[in-house]
Every structure is written in structure tokens, then in C-alpha cells.
């Protein structure tokens, strides 16, 4: 589970994240939505201990992201959109194995975990070939397997379907649902409101680093008497820009 407490991040003049607090329970998918530059990536990077918060903190499975970054990293798996981030000259298995061992797994644990994932994601055919010549969909599967190989209890997804075609995006979405079944706490950022609506239990809307609204899909629709979440979002963001 994740507990975000008054988390802020300042880059020189820009207050990228401004005192946000929210909670993610086990087996829950929370959607982080916001415009470009709202602070989604910055928030996720702080949770992943890549960036240090300027103030506030968060707890990941009880570990503090500022005080115990090492333990936090052992609890999280990340899948960030854009480049899949694989080593072209290593095989699929070597790519996944490298990250497993960097996370402190033994060779035996690594190999068992990879074999399981290969079956789950149906990668038998190409897992021992070099990644360089893989299709985007194949690479995506390797990246997915890598993010979860050390069996983390928390998953962070930052626009994981950006730039993917429908079937590749589907693989990712199915994987997110699979993580939910495994009772992991999940944060998932996206621009696509329909995707968020489809996958998420709760939604956190952020704008200019601040949370403007949060709640379950039903709660939000009820509160704003609008069946279209996109309209709700645009209205909230517009209100905030207006003042």
C-alpha cells in the first residue's frame, strides 16, 4: 500500500508537485490524471525514489521514501511509457535477469521467476533471442516481465500505453489487471480518460501540482451530475485556471 503525505517537489522556480496527499490500498488501482506538466511523472519518480521530495513524504508498504529508499525500491516495480528501455544486445532473458539480480535475487530465484513470466506472457519463442530485433509488442512484454520479476508489492505505471497500438496497449492493460488480482497496490497515470475509467478503482485529478478532486468513478460522476468524466475533468481544470 501507498500513503502519500503532503508531498511537494520544487525545481528551481517551478513548484511541480504541491502538497499532495492520497492513499492506495492493496489490490487497488488508482488513476493519476492531469494535463501535460501537471506533475504526474514527478510524483511517480518521487515514489520510486529517483527524485528527493522538497517537502512531505510517502510510505510504501510502511517504508519511508526519504529515510529508507533502498527498502522502498525493493517493494516497487515500474513501467514507464515512452522508450521501453531494454538493452538491445542482451536477450530477453538476460534483460529481465539483470534487473532481478540487481534487486538482490539469487540465480535460482531469478530463473524460476523468469520461467513463470515467460509462460504467463507467452514469450517462449523468443525469450532467448537478442532484444534488438524484437517488435514493439515483444519488447513491451519483456519490459513488463522485467518490472515484476522481483515480485514487488507496489506497481507504478506512468503512461504505459502511450504510443502503443491497440493490441500492445491491451497487453499492458491486461497486465495491470493481473497485478490487481495479485493484490498489489497500483498507481497508473494516463491522459486517456476512458482507459482510466476502465481500469481504475479511484481517480486522483491533479492540476499544476495540486489535487483538484479525488474519488471513485461513481462518486465523481454523482457529485458533478455528469456521466462523462472528461467533461468533469475539463470543468475542474477550467475552474482552477479561471481564478
Amino acid at each position, binding site marked *: 500500500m501507498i500513503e502519500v503525505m503532503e508531498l511537494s517537489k520544487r525545481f528551481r522556480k517551478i513548484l511541480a508537485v504541491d502538497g499532495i496527499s492520497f492513499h492506495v490500498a492493496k489490490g487497488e488501482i488508482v488513476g493519476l490524471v492531469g494535463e501535460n506538466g501537471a506533475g504526474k511523472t514527478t510524483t511517480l519518480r518521487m515514489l*520510486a525514489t*529517483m527524485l528527493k521530495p522538497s517537502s512531505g513524504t510517502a510510505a510504501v508498504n510502511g517504508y519511508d521514501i526519504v529515510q529508507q529508499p533502498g527498502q522502498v525500491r525493493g517493494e516497487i516495480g*515500474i513501467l514507464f511509457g515512452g522508450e521501453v528501455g531494454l*538493452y538491445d544486445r542482451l536477450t530477453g532473458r538476460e534483460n529481465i535477469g539483470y534487473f532481478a539480480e*540487481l534487486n538482490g535475487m539469487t540465480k535460482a530465484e531469478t530463473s524460476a521467476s523468469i520461467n513463470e513470466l515467460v509462460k504467463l506472457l507467452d514469450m517462449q519463442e523468443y525469450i532467448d533471442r537478442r532484444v534488438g530485433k524484437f517488435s514493439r509488442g515483444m519488447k513491451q512484454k519483456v519490459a513488463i516481465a522485467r*518490472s515484476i520479476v522481483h515480485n514487488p508489492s507496489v506497481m507504478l505505471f506512468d503512461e504505459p500505453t502511450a504510443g502503443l497500438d491497440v493490441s500492445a496497449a491491451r497487453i499492458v492493460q491486461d497486465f495491470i489487471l493481473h497485478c490487481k488480482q495479485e493484490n498489489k497496490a497500483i498507481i497508473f497515470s494516463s491522459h486517456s480518460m476512458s482507459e482510466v475509467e476502465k481500469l481504475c478503482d479511484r481517480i486522483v485529478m491533479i492540476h499544476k501540482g495540486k489535487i483538484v478532486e479525488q474519488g471513485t468513478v461513481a462518486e465523481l460522476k454523482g457529485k458533478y451530475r455528469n456521466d462523462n468524466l472528461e467533461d468533469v475533468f475539463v470543468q475542474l481544470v477550467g475552474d482552477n485556471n479561471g481564478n
Partner: protein
Amino acid sequence: MGINVIKLVFLKELKDIFRDKKTIFMSLVIPLTIFPLLFLVLGGSMDKSMKQVEENLTVAIVDSGNSSLSQFLHNQETIKLVESTDVEADIKSGKILVALEIPANFDEDIIAEKPADLALLYDNSSQSSQMAFSAVSSMVDAYSKVVIEERLLARDIRGDLLTPVVIDARTTEKEEEGFGKFMLSLMLPLMLVIFSITGPMGVAVDLGAGEKERGTLEPLLTTQAGRLSLLWGKFFAITVMGLLSTMASLLGLLFSMRQEGGLFQGSAVSIEPITLVLIGLVTLLLTMFFGALELSISIYARSFKEAQTYISPLTMISFIPTYATYMLDAKNIETYYFHIPLANISCILKEFLAGIYNFTHIGITFAWIIIYIIAAVLFARYMFSKEEVIFRT
């Protein structure tokens, strides 16, 4: 944990590098072959022009009085006499290499034992003409000797009276090694510094900026591996590759010196093992320094291209202090040189090659190299820990 992670990163990076044909080609194959090829071509062309002159010593003799000298030259087998009406133009065009102008009263002067004049024309901008000039000059010298002996004989004096001292020139270096050693002391310091920069370059770019460009840096930073362990693993991998690349270049250089028909004409230079060890050590340390420095720059850059743009000026900058000491004679290098970055490296290598082991110089230089390395590693560590560097936008 730390050591295991460093080892893991180190081995992974080496595996990755060795599977990259382009990097292997650029950092091992080219350095290994470039010198043998270069010297073979250089040596070959020098050899060729020498042979050409020997086989085709075209000389025009403008003799106003059919002198004894021109008869002497006629009898020389190597000379090819060519008729010429305008010697200057023919020399310029290369039709003849040199021309002799023998005045009409040449023989009279010789007989009268007066200094006889002789004009020897050649093209001082042409290597072949210069070689021909010295060949003809030595023939004229030989003629002079004949004349001298005749004169002495006429006075009943022994010929060796004119050479009271006979010099037996003995060299401290084995004769055939002297030239090679001289060339080596000029070239090797310069080359080793350059190799230490270029050797780790490609790999450093790949292991820093490449990690960013591929998008592997973020997942890497969210593993349990500490940033310092990642840094050390990468640093050692870069050092190993840099060193292999430098060794490939040196091997190529040594091989080319032994090459028959190359520039060094196979003049094998024997270097003492202790010298080799010391040179190797200096090279290793210098490679570590540049490796760490290049890795710091590379992690700052946003892409391969940017990294290459930032790193390549290093070669030019480093060239200045190294080149400034290029011509120094190893036997009298003043101590202050050993405080100048890179000039000290170049100077200490010169001394080692000359077999000089000055402990003050060695102490100063090694102390500085260690300081350079520590500074570069600390800089790399600083760069790896800075959010502004890792997530530069």
C-alpha cells in the same frame, strides 16, 4: 551487497560491449591495425623513392673541356647520363635529378693544384633530387680522394698521413635500436596520452548517455542497486575496455616497428620489463582518470550525440600540454614540468623510455595522477547523485 552489485554491473556491461561489433571494431581492431598499415605505407613509399633514385640516377654534365672528373663519372655504373640543353628546366620537370657544370679550366686548376670550381645543381624541394645530390657529392668526394692520393704520391708521402686519427664510432644503444628508441621517445608519450583519452571514449558514451537515450536509466535507478555501485561497475568496465584498446594500439605500434620494409626497417627496440611495467601502470592510471571524467560528462549529456560533442574536445585540449613537451630531451627535464597536468605524464614516460628513474619525478607524477583519479571519480559520483544531471531536460 555492494561488491556483488558492482560485479554484476561490470560483467553485464562487458558482455554488452563485447556483443557490439561496432565498438569492438573501433576500439580493438582499428587500433591494432592502424600503425602497421600506416608505417608500411610510409616506409614503403620512402623505400620506393630511394630505390628509384638508385636505379635511375639521371645526371646531366655540362662540361666545357672534357675534364678528368667527367670521365671519372662516366665510369660510375650507377650514373645515367642524360643530354640536356636547359638543365634548370629539366631539373624542375624531373627529367634529370642533378646537373654538374664543370668549367673549361677545371683540369688546368687540378693540375696546377689550385682549388677547382664545380657547380652542382639540384632541386631542394624534391626528395629524389636531394638524394641524388648526396649520391653525386660523394662521388665527387671519391674523385677528390683520388686526386689527393696522386698529389701525395708525387711528393713521396704516404696517403694515411692525412688521417692522423681514426674514429671508431660506438653507440650506447645497439646501433640498429638507436633510431627506433629515438622515435619511440618522441611518439610514445604523445600516443599513450591520446590512447588513454580515445580508448575509453566510445564505451563511456554508451554507458552514460546511452543509458539515458535507451530509457534504461530510470528502471535501473529503481532497482535496489545503489547509485554508487552502478557507478563503480560502469567505471571498471570502462577502464578495462580503455586499457584493452590502448594495449591493442601499443601492440600494433610494436608490431609495426618490427615490420620488415616498414618505416623502422624492422629495427627491433628492446624495452626492459621494468620499464614496460611502469609504462603500463602510468597508462592504466591515466585511462582510469579519463574514463571517470568521460563517464561524468556522458551522464550529464542527454544523448549519444551530445556526449560525443562534449567529450571530443578533450583530445584537443590534452594535446597542448603533451605536445609542448614533445621535443624535450629526457636527460634534462626540469622538475616544474612534473607539476603540469599531462605534461608530467609525457615527461615521466620519456624518462622511463630513456631508462631514467628519478624518484622525485616519479613521486610527484604518481601523486598527481592519484589526485586526478580521485578528483575525477568524486566528480562522477557527484554527477550520478545530482537530480539535475540525471533528469536533465
